[in-house]
């Protein structure tokens, strides 16, 4: 803390050794975008193969590697790090802190990510190919029948798990200990609240994932039989352990997205968020419920009826706090002075499409009906509505919303609107037809399909190419803004925006809130 007013170091060492939350946030965001493009490339290969029935472009084994890596890269490489990057950038500025609580650990938690993903991607070039057992890596597919590269996959999961745990410990320590005077818990911006709860989920379940892959490692190399029936184990145990991690994981992905939308919708409605306290309690309720619903992913494994009923009712219960949130967002807009800049458009897109994804989720929660939907394209459509239109749309909205604050330059609004509409239309062309083919019985994770699904699959593929191409426009818009964007005219950027992050100069200086904001300022913006 010696010299307060130095700027960033020069050259590569700035990025390697930085402990500045803004630098680390920027690196997280760029890294996650790179992973988004990589995972998107895998998706394009999948959709190209499925463009027409019959084996067209790739071998079935390679197709399975693509579905697996697409899921892993998007979940662990694109969505999760992008929200961690956003947390790094915004949380200290939102609570009036000078930096994260543990800046050096922050550097480390970012810098172990690229090697981890390099290792995961390198399995593509190994003998036997990359992991091909789906992103859920069910045993024994991922143990007895896996390619030798599975060991590298396990180590990669360990590495990014450690990164996530360190990142979330940092966020919790920051939020609990570094809030400016007057910033009480119930005054924190909702993005901070949702991230605080997300971080607790991460600390609780990433070790469970680590445990699951450790058991796989031991089964493969050390002669144990956790998941091998021959030695007295049980493959179904894997599914329980995995989904005990996996269900909280889907809320880890969506809760920060809820937080982002809860910042943006009030700003463009020029009204405070409706039902702030109920939003906080709804987030906490969702987090709690996420621990007791995992088996709804595995209704078909042969559970007792009592188990099916418990998990069905518990799952349906999640619709209540989620509904509270959706109604609060809608009510926030009610009689607001609405305007529809790009961040608002993506937030509205989120609201509509996430709600559709939520409804298909309710359909899937019905145990007797799920026996038909299980492992079909209906499930694929459902989780892309909540992951892409949910998490990715809100992340895109966040970038458009805060980018002018970050770099002091305004993005091209026309290009932003075009990006939104291409994304929105492309996304729906891709995933809406998948509901129909799924209900008609098309299984997921197959490289070929029956002829009656041909038309809808071709539509899906065309939509996917459109949606994929629209991301290039997004990249261009962001780069053009940073390099040569028009200077932001209004210091506050958005007239309706509230929060401490808008009280700092534009562009946000390298160090902010070295002196905590005054309690009056916190009161005015809390």
């Amino acid at each position: 803390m010696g010299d307060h007013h130095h700027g960033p170091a020069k050259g590569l060492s700035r990025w390697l050794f930085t402990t500045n939350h803004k630098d680390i946030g920027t690196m997280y965001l760029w890294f996650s975008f790179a992973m988004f493009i990589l995972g998107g490339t895998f998706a394009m290969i999948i959709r190209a193969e499925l463009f027409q029935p019959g084996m067209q472009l790739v071998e079935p084994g390679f197709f399975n590697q693509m579905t697996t890596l697409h899921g892993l890269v998007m979940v662990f490489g694109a969505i999760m790090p992008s929200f961690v990057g956003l947390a790094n950038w915004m949380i200290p500025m939102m609570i009036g802190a000078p930096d994260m609580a543990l800046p050096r650990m922050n550097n480390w938690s970012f810098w172990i990510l690229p090697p981890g993903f390099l290792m995961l991607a390198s399995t593509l070039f190994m003998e036997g190919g990359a992991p091909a057992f789906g992103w859920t890596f069910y045993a024994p597919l991922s143990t007895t029948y896996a390619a030798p590269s599975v060991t590298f996959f396990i180590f990669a999961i360990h590495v990014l798990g450690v990164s996530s745990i360190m990142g979330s410990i940092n966020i919790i320590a920051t939020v609990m200990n570094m809030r400016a005077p007057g910033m009480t818990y119930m005054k924190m911006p909702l993005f901070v609240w949702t991230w605080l709860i997300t971080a607790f989920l991460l600390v609780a379940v990433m070790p469970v994932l680590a445990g699951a892959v450790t058991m796989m490692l031991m089964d493969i190399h050390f002669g144990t039989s956790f998941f091998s029936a021959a030695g007295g184990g049980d493959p179904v145990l894997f599914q329980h352990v995995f989904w005990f991690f996996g269900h909280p994981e889907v809320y880890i992905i969506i809760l920060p997205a809820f937080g982002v939308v809860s910042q943006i919708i009030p700003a463009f409605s020029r009204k405070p968020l409706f039902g702030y306290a109920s939003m906080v309690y709804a987030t906490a309720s969702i987090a709690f419920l996420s621990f007791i619903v995992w088996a709804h992913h595995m209704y078909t494994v042969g559970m007792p009826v009592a188990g099916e009923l418990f998990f069905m009712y518990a799952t349906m219960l999640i619709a209540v706090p989620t509904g509270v949130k959706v109604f609060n967002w809608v009510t926030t807009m009610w009689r607001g002075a609405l305007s529809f800049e790009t961040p608002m458009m993506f937030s509205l897109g989120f609201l509509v499409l996430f709600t559709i994804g939520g409804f298909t989720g309710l359909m899937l929660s019905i145990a007797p009906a799920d026996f038909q939907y299980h492992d079909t394209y209906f499930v694929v459509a459902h989780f892309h509505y909540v992951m892409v239109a949910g998490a990715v749309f809100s992340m895109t909205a966040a970038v458009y919303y805060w980018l002018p604050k970050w770099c002091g330059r305004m993005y091209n609004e026309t290009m932003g609107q075009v990006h939104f509409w291409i994304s929105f239309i492309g996304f729906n062309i891709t995933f809406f037809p998948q509901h129909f083919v799924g209900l008609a019985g098309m299984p997921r994770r197959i490289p070929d399909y029956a002829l009656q699904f041909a038309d809808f699959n071709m539509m899906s593929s065309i939509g996917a190419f459109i949606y994929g191409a629209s991301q290039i426009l997004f990249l261009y818009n962001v780069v053009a803004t940073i390099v040569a964007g028009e200077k932001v005219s209004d210091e506050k950027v958005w007239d309706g925006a509230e929060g401490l992050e808008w009280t700092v100069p534009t562009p946000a200086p390298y160090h902010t809130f070295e002196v905590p904001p005054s309690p009056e300022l916190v009161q005015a913006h809390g």
Partner: protein
Amino acid sequence: MLRVSANPTLDTVIKLVAVAVAMFAFVFVVMVPLYNVLCDVLGINGKTDGTAYTAVSTAVDESRTITVQFIAQNNEDMPWRFKPEVTMMKVHPGAANDTVFFAANPTPNDMVAQAIPSISPARAAEYFHKTECFCFNQQPLDGNADAAMPLQFIIDQDLPRDIQTITLSYTLFDVTEMVRDAVASR
């Protein structure tokens, strides 16, 4: 205990690391044993008790007859011939019944097998008691050898009255490699 900490951030970190470590341990010391206990107690997946049962009562309920069906199958590449002596028995609850399964190793190599039982309907698993079973141990067979493997069982008198047929399925796994690895590591 002092309420105000000298370094609150460090305190938070220590607590959170402890949570993470505890959750990692939770998988191994709680989830795995709990799953196995629940499966044993509730008979989920048709798992039967892996140890010999000692009969507590000799009363035989002759008022009803239960059909017990036997299924024998090989897991994936297991080359042994494996079949029950009879595919069906009619038994009274409480009575001890004997049957055998035949196994033959057609390969010239010495092999070891493990039979894994499963009961259907799963609800019947806790009422199906084995007093002797080849599935309690691994079965070694020399190359080109065969064996008759005994099974003795008692159906509990408390078996729910709506269950009239019980299917006992054995899947035979090749564990030669596992046994060899275990011996080698000693």
